[in-house]
């Protein structure tokens, strides 16, 4: 049976992709952010996952408002990024794992999570930037695992509740642990932390709330299910709702996790950037 090694979270700000392209690792603005990643790289090197479940939110590339799935799971042989409106270069495709995708889909629906399956899915910066952060040169990194993208809607309300996100993760964990292959799996929860891009409150960041989320997501994620969706908008900012991806990741890891590394920095672009690596008990 497959084993979940752990979960990694990171912000997935588009500007990070640009900074990676320009190799701004030691630039004074970027250094406090990129310094959060060497420990993650070392852990990945030591643990060599075979599969990566990339939980992200599409920002208007893979999905439009004509058909907006609340939870969508990729089931393709490969995943391509595309131009998102500002001339992004096309990368080589990320290798998929359709047999794992369909196992997850079967298991999730049997577990009463009615998801949308996608045999084609263009992946945006929410998926790509974390891959580039964790596997430098992605997808052309020799250790690049095969990927299953999972996207949750945070574009249009109603968005899922924090409890639903955590429960989704728990069901995802059951699905992964029942995959009949001796495989090693890592789960990414991407997006956040607090930020707001739109409106008269644009630029809003909330360090205190982010710290509350960072503390509880490690040891007491159930506490966070008390936060209502509108409280999340109010306290994390309109786009801080991406924290739902962290909840989904966390649910899949089970109760017993060890924090390996954490980084938090304000600001990267308009965002409070957070990185966290949690390892599952052996």
């Amino acid at each position, binding site marked *: 049976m497959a084993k979940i090694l752990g979960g990694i979270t990171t912000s997935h700000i588009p500007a990070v992709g640009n900074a990676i392209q320009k190799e701004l690792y030691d630039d004074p603005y970027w250094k406090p952010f990129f310094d959060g990643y060497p420990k993650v790289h070392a852990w990945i090197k030591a643990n060599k996952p075979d599969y990566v479940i990339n939980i992200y939110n599409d920002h208007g590339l893979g999905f439009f408002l004509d058909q907006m799935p609340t939870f969508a799971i990729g089931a393709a042989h490969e995943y391509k990024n595309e131009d998102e409106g500002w001339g992004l270069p096309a990368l080589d495709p990320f290798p998929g794992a359709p047999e794992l995708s369909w196992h997850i889909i079967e298991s999730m629906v049997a577990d009463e999570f009615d998801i949308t399956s996608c045999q084609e899915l263009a992946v945006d910066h929410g998926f790509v930037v974390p891959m580039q952060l964790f596997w430098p040169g992605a997808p052309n990194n020799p250790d690049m695992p095969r990927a299953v993208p999972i996207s949750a809607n945070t574009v249009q309300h109603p968005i899922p509740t924090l409890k639903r996100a955590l429960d989704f993760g728990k069901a995802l964990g059951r699905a992964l642990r029942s995959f009949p292959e001796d495989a090693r799996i890592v789960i990414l929860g991407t997006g956040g932390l607090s930020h707001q891009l739109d409106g008269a409150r644009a630029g809003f960041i909330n360090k205190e709330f982010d710290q509350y989320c960072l503390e509880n997501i490690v040891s007491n994620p159930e506490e966070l299910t008390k936060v209502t969706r509108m409280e999340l*908008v109010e306290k994390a900012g309109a786009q801080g709702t991406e924290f739902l991806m962290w909840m989904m990741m966390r649910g899949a890891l089970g109760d017993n996790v060890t924090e390996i590394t954490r980084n938090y920095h304000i600001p990267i672009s308009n965002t409070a950037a957070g990185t966290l690596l949690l390892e599952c008990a052996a």
Partner: protein
Amino acid sequence: MDHPGFDHHTHIPGTTIFDGKMAMKGYALNKMCYAFNRQDNRDAFVADEEAFMEKYGLNDAQKQAVRDRNILGMIEEGGNIYYLAKFAGIFKLSVQDVGGMQTGRSTEEFQDFLQSQA
């Protein structure tokens, strides 16, 4: 789309909850901006803005907000920031530029504001 007794809207100052009502109001505007994922559509917009807006069926208020590069106006008319970001991309505006435009700050003042919350 008003259904008395079924208003799911919540008020958070300076924040538009992009719910079903706003998603319906802004559909044409957002659909146009979604098209800006493609370079050929961005080029077509730059070549003839009015024709492009007409093609996507924007209403007069949406058209005027686009002509004025009025981000708050576009949000008021149902625009969603994730799609509007693609509109901003045509003009090479960063999210700090867009933040400044919405809050009456220069880009530098907006960046200072972000930094002040560290």
